[in-house]
């Protein structure tokens, strides 16, 4: 008995498994960047109670500043890595200054004011970036050691992306260790549960806020720094990532750390495959998912219901 | 006639049992108080009675009607009034507007879309202001009032709904001895004049023993004693619970 054309039809329907794997890995890569930004967003929201619209802008600054430092350190050994370090730390510094000088003054007001100030920052940072770096696309080349690509099932996947995929959980683990096994971590977790209580326990809440905001900003800056060789550095990257970061944080749970990782992984895959399978519906689907989670389980998959 | 029946009501939060099988009833015209150390579950019990929280188990009946898990606004409309532990007023509105809003809601005018609101129920509102001792403070922004006056305003808002049963959550909290005395006198007078049934929680033992007809003692979510003031005063269980809480 000969095999029927049915077999051929099935094969035409099923895409190449190596192609699927590559798509999945791309989704994983994007998920890591989402995780970096969303975890900073989640941390800031958990401790300070502020939803930082400007987090995408800090990410963008990280990318631009990395580009700047790479241009400064032309032909220096390890120029990319130095640029990443300086770029992310600069963003951390900028974040700390913003919190200390401006955001702090709005704490006594209603939450809407703080939210809107972060939006004002989005406008300001976006235009500052345009003034300094123009509106064209910029890019940074990949570091020498990670310039190559690795063959996977017959297709090639960039070494740099693999590095990013490995780095994500690495940073997650590092933060988990700090949050659960150090004094600072315990304070941060306590602050997320009850800010006022912490103040009466003698913790300098003001400094805590500045430190947490700085760390959150550093994470965003790091994300931007690391994305600079992969994505185009261009105005608008701030707006594009912040919406997705919001979705991740909502799905995973505002203030929940592992939830953010989970949310990032989910969204990364949905975006990666959605474009292929349901290009028209995937965008709508993502927002519907966000709405559904907010309606049914607003504290996300792994978060805890807000007591406030 | 029995005003309020609380039957084996239970409520937990995340594993912590706040109210554990509490049962009691309150008769019409009675003045009852619920006492107990901090964390005993008094405010939670109130929130369950007024519908702000859902019960896990048990039943609640008001004037013979089953009110278990009804939304707060329905329970209010049936004739229950309440004051809250932390002052609950409408801070940016004036004292007059605070009371007027409650009167508007009570008299069913809340869906009126077209007439200017200033003209409604001016006399009734002034009358209530007078009853709670705020006659001349009508035009003051309520958020700027002193604590004591805000508490009086809160009482006024509760009274505006012409309740038959009034629940007061720590009505004299944070007051000086003089203010406490004035407040209790005011509450006692209004209760008598209107024939209200009163259920309140308190920490101030003097207040409790001076006006309560019946006292209930809550401890760790359970009702551990119930009876006349004299009985409670001499009850060994209650004294054990209150060791160290002299007043």
């Amino acid at each position: 008995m000969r095999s029927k054309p049915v077999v051929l039809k099935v094969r035409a329907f099923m895409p190449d498994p190596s192609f699927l794997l590559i798509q999945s890995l791309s989704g994983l890569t994007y998920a890591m960047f989402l995780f970096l930004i969303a975890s900073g967003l989640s941390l800031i929201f958990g401790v300070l109670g502020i939803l930082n619209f400007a987090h995408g802008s800090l990410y963008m600054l990280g990318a631009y500043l990395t580009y700047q430092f790479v241009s400064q350190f032309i032909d220096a050994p390890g120029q990319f890595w130095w640029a990443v370090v300086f770029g992310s730390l600069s963003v951390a510094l900028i974040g700390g200054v913003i919190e200390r000088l401006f955001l702090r003054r709005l704490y006594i007001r209603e939450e809407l004011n703080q939210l809107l100030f972060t939006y004002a920052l989005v406008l300001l940072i976006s235009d500052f970036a345009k003034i300094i770096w123009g509106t064209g696309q910029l890019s940074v080349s990949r570091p020498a050691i990670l310039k190559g690509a690795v063959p996977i099932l017959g297709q090639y996947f960039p070494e740099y992306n693999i590095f990013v995929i490995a780095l994500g959980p690495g940073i997650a683990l590092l933060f988990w260790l700090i949050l659960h096994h150090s004094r600072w971590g315990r304070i941060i977790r306590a602050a997320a549960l009850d800010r006022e209580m912490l103040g009466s326990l003698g913790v300098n809440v003001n400094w805590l806020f500045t430190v947490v905001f700085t760390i959150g900003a550093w994470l965003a800056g790091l994300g931007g720094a690391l994305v600079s060789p992969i994505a185009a550095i261009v105005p608008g990257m701030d707006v594009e990532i912040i919406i997705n970061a919001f979705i991740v944080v909502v799905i995973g749970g505002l203030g929940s750390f592992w939830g953010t990782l989970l949310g990032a992984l989910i969204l990364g895959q949905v975006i990666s495959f959605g474009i292929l399978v349901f290009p028209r519906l995937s965008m709508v689907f993502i927002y519907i998912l966000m709405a559904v989670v907010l309606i049914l389980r607003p504290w996300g998959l792994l978060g805890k219901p807000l007591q406030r | 006639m029995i005003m309020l029946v609380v039957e084996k009501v239970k409520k937990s939060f995340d594993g912590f049992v706040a109210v554990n099988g509490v049962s009691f009833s309150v008769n019409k015209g009675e003045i009852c108080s619920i006492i107990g150390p901090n964390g005993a579950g008094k405010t939670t019990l109130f929130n369950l009675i007024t519908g702000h929280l859902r019960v896990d188990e048990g039943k609640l009946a008001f004037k013979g009607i089953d009110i278990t898990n009804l939304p707060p606004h329905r329970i209010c409309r049936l004739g229950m009034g309440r004051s809250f532990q932390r002052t609950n007023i409408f801070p940016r509105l004036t004292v007059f507007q605070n009371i007027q809003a409650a009167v508007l809601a009570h008299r069913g005018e809340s869906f009126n879309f077209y007439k200017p609101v200033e003209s409604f129920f001016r006399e009734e509102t002034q009358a209530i202001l007078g009853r709670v001792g705020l006659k001349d403070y009508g035009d003051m922004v309520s958020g700027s009032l002193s604590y004591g006056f805000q508490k009086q305003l809160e009482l006024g808002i509760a009274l505006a709904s012409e309740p038959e049963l009034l629940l007061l959550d720590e009505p004299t909290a944070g007051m000086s001895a003089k203010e406490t005395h004035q407040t209790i006198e005011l509450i006692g007078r209004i209760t008598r004049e209107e024939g209200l049934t009163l259920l309140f929680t308190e920490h101030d033992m003097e207040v409790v023993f001076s006006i309560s007809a019946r006292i209930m003692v809550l401890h760790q979510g359970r009702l551990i004693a119930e009876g006349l003031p004299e009985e409670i005063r001499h009850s060994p269980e209650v004294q054990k619970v209150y060791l160290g809480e002299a007043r």
Partner: protein
Amino acid sequence: MFKENWFLIAIIFLLALVPLSDSRFYIFLGTDILIMGLFAVSLNLLLGYTGLVCFGQAAYFGIGAYTYTLLMKKASFSFPFAFLAAPVFGAVAALIIGIFCIQRTKIYFAMLTLAFSQIVWAIVFKWNSLTGGDNGIIGIPFPQHLDSPTRFYYFTLVVVVFSFYIMRKAVNSPFGRMLTTIRENPERTEFIGINVKLFQLLAFMISGFFSAIAGALFAIFNHSVFPDLLFWPHSAEVLIMTLLGGMYSFFGPLVGAAVMLYLRMLVTSYTQYWPLIMGTILALLLFFFPGGIVGFLKTQRLFSREK
């Protein structure tokens, strides 16, 4: 009370005289301000009066704009029908979306409004066959008897004044007072016998209704519609206008719209960095003028009276 009404009538009279200046510029700006003013005031029904922070108001503006456009262009309905259908669709959308949103409070409510607004945007953006997707729909003409900027300006003036009249009545009525108590203290309002969620939903629908009218007016005024009208920065922009003017007064948002549109016109003729200016204004507002322009003016007047 009466003084205020005479003041308003004077303003309306002045506005009616604008086209006599024969300046296309002022007629254009005036129409724009009236439309955005209506949009902002309808948002403020939720924000300033009911205390609901809404990040997705652009959805109803856009629904109004697209409903009118699609009914006129694709379905060839008559102008009155299409124009009246727009706010109806807006109110229905607000009802559906509102039912879900009011189940949550504060930040979750705000994010829900944002999520739904993005859903609507994504649908409009992707449904190419119906809405033209990213290309939008162009070539929307003035309606038959309103076929000049001046005539359309007067039509807009009438519609907007009438809308303001209705909204103002509602806000100064017992219903409006209930909204204010909800803003001040929803828990307390619940226990004066008010079904808070029902009132919030009604406010939502009224707000959506009038935002959609603004959207329909805009579709005609702009002679085109694009998905951008529904994108979240548009919601942010109208929110800023509302705060700029002052969210605790009825006409504050209209003042905010006027100032912001005028400033934008000025600034964009010199530089492309309007977002920078807008961000600075917003920051200044938040730090120094929390009551907005009208709030600030009110404190000034208070000063001189209490001498």
